[in-house]
């Protein structure tokens, strides 16, 4: 049993017992010694006084007997101090004893005592002298002497029994102490083991209370605390997982910064948003992680003012990601001072749409105003008198007419587009060989191609099945695409058209040119109305900016799709997918 508590209690007991012994030794021993010595002395005085009742002669005769009876050495001295007899020293001559202190005292008071070293016997002796009276003067003295060692011996006897008693008391009391110490220490130790288990994160079963005393109460309390703690942990864990689920489940990106402005937590939403560009952002500062000047400005502003900041920041290469960030302090939890939360909202798509809308309005206005300005200008010129010049009038009217036609075309295109988008256009589906339509379109565009010395290469394998399509619409699709191809291919270039059966249900048409190409960034935006790769590049080519948009929508109406791939400077290739005409399917849908 290695309990410190046990040793402490046990040691306390041990020390207590030892202390009792020490006190006895130091305070009681002198007292006992004195008491015993006095007792012996008084007994000797008693003996002496009894002896003094006898005459000297009687005493002299019975000196040996008297000594034996009183267990003392007896010396009989006459009034002058001369030793008449001595029980121990029978034959030797002894010097005058009148000057002995006990005798002197007896001469004055009738009796005297002294403790001194006897040279005769060479040991400490206890002397008692009693005067022997005769009528009214002292006839002599009787002196009794006992060795102090004898006294010591009897003290020793006494002590032996005292120590024996003490010993007999100590043993059981130590056993009791042992049991008591163990009784306290072992439940405490078990409690300690219990709390250690809890600290280690285990869930020990509650402990039985073995008694009703404080320890028992403590055990009960600890049991209660454990139970309560576990309940609290359960609730907290539940709350935490709820929060985590919300944290990870939300679309917004969230991150928190610790007191050293390093990212200590972020959610799945944020990983999704920036994951492509930034991995392991944990432990970095916002600047290290995102390297955005906008974000840093917002963050520094927040750090300076402490106000919640909301700002749009562009992240990523070529500002491909536009985020709305909300920076605020995490408040209300002690120890959380200086923690900051950033919430990111992806507004890239929103910004794109906004831009698209603004572009659209600006483009429509521009596209309409250009021909209108021309028409107005020529009409005004005519009004101001040019009408008189026949030749000029014709030319001006022609130009005005051309512009009016362009305006008309534009409005037609817009109308077509909006009709397709609203689903109001009726498609006349029929069996159609795409190659026939393409050939027809090429015939229309041949003069322009020839003027730019563009080679037109066709590759129409015979086994390509017919498609299900509206002839007029398909014509428009290929006209738009091939017209673009011719427009944006420099002189001496080539356009290659290939049809192929992609799978059982799809026919593909690839139109590849060697034109100037389209930058990667612009590819996704090509289908937007009025979207131009370069603001200035195609308007001069006479397009309305709606061509590809119409193609995209018409293909969708056919149940097909468009894919455009391009390398700037090398050319563009447009891939169109048409659904194959399947008669059974047609019958089914009609029946």
């Amino acid at each position, binding site marked *: 049993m290695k309990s410190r508590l046990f040793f402490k209690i046990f040691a306390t007991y041990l020390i207590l017992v030892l202390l009792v012994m020490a006190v006895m030794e130091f305070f009681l021993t002198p007292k006992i010694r004195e008491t015993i010595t006095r007792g012996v002395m008084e007994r000797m005085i008693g003996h002496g006084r009894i002896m003094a009742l006898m005459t000297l002669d009687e005493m002299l005769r019975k000196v040996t007997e008297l000594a034996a009876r009183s267990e003392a050495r007896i010396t009989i001295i006459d009034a002058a101090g001369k030793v008449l007899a001595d029980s121990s020293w029978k034959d030797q001559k002894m010097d005058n004893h009148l000057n002995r202190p006990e005798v002197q005292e007896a001469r004055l008071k009738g009796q005297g005592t002294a403790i001194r070293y006897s040279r005769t016997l060479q040991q400490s002796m206890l002397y008692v002298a009693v005067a022997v009276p005769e009528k009214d003067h002292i006839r002599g003295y009787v002196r009794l002497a006992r060795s102090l060692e004898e006294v010591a011996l009897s003290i020793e006897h006494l002590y032996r029994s005292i120590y024996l008693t003490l010993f007999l008391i100590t043993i059981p009391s130590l056993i009791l102490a042992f049991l008591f110490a163990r009784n306290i220490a072992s439940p405490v130790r078990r409690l300690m083991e219990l709390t250690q288990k809890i600290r280690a994160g285990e869930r020990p079963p509650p402990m039985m209370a073995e008694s009703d005393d404080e320890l028992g109460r403590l055990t009960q309390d600890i049991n209660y605390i454990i139970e309560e703690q576990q309940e609290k942990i359960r609730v907290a864990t539940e709350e935490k997982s709820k929060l985590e689920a919300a944290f990870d489940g939300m679309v917004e990106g969230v991150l928190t910064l610790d007191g050293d402005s390093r990212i200590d937590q972020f959610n799945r939403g944020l990983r999704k948003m920036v994951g492509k560009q930034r991995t392991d952002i944990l432990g*970095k*500062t916002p*600047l*290290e992680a995102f*390297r*955005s*000047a*906008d974000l*840093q400005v917002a963050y520094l502003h927040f750090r300076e003012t402490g106000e919640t900041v909301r700002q749009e920041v562009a992240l990523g*290469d*070529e*500002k491909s990601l536009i985020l709305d960030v909300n920076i605020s302090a995490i408040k209300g939890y002690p120890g959380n001072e200086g923690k900051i939360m950033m919430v990111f909202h992806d507004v890239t798509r929103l910004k794109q749409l906004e831009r698209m809308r603004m572009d659209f309005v600006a483009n429509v206005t521009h596209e309409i105003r250009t021909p209108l300005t021309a028409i107005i200008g020529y009409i005004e010129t005519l009004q101001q008198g040019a009408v008189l010049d026949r030749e000029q009038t014709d030319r001006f009217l022609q130009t005005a007419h051309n512009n009016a036609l362009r305006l008309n075309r534009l409005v037609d295109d817009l109308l077509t587009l909006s009709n397709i988008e609203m689903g109001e256009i009726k498609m006349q589906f029929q069996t159609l060989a795409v190659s026939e339509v393409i050939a027809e379109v090429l015939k229309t565009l041949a003069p322009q191609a020839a003027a730019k010395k563009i080679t037109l290469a066709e590759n129409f394998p015979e086994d390509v099945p017919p498609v299900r399509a509206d002839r007029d619409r398909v014509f428009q699709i290929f006209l738009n695409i091939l017209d673009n191809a011719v427009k944006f291919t420099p002189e001496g270039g080539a356009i290659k058209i290939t049809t192929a059966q992609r799978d059982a249900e799809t026919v593909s048409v690839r139109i590849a040119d060697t034109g*100037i*190409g389209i*930058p990667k960034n612009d590819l996704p935006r090509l289908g937007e109305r009025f979207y131009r*790769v*370069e*603001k*200035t*590049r195609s308007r001069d080519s006479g397009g309305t900016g709606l061509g590809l948009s119409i193609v995209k929508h018409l293909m969708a109406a056919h149940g097909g799709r468009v894919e455009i791939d391009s390398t*700037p*400077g090398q050319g563009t290739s447009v891939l169109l997918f048409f659904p194959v005409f399947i008669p059974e399917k047609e019958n089914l849908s009609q029946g």
Partner: protein
Amino acid sequence: MDTKRHTSKQYEAELLEVKENLLYLGALVQEAIEDSIQALLERDTELARKVIANDVNIDKLDDEIEEKCVRLLALRQPAARDLRFITTAIKINGHLERIGDMAVKICEKIALLNEEPQLKPYIDLPRMAEIARSMIRQSLDALVNEDVELANKVRREDEIVDSLNEQIFRELLTFMMEDHRTIHRSLLIMQISKTLERISDHAKSIADMVVFMITGMNVRHQWPFEGQET
């Protein structure tokens, strides 16, 4: 950077601050390049002027970083790694500031270009600008992550920009020979291209410095490809 071993918290904070400022400067410079290319493509003179005006911020931050570095050198007397970091920071700082000035130069040319009709669609210029910008970013990424590999990659990318510059030069030469009216615009574009090429040179130098900072090896005058002649 492992600065946890510093006993002085203040010192550590100061080193981190220099690093943060450097990254901020880098972000500002990248933005300047991005904006100037956007100004070129969209013929947005307004944006070009904004870039020119914003250069003040870059210059201010440049002064600030330099002062901080000098103060650190004087007061803390850094050794080994920290000394390398601070001297590197001073140099990177200088390079970034120069790049900022170059973005201003580009924008001045753009403002002039926009006064005339567009000569040709720009294809290689944005590519150059994008590569140069990403070189700056990656060299600073290498600084943050102590990534020698990435720094070396940046050092090699300089080649691509150089060849694009030459390509643009040849293309513009044909324009000028065909039509003398295009000479002014061609020269302006040429200057922009040349400036972008120099920006990428600076970015390469930054990458060199990062390699030095991490490894302690001076690679400034070494060819980044192994076993190849310059």
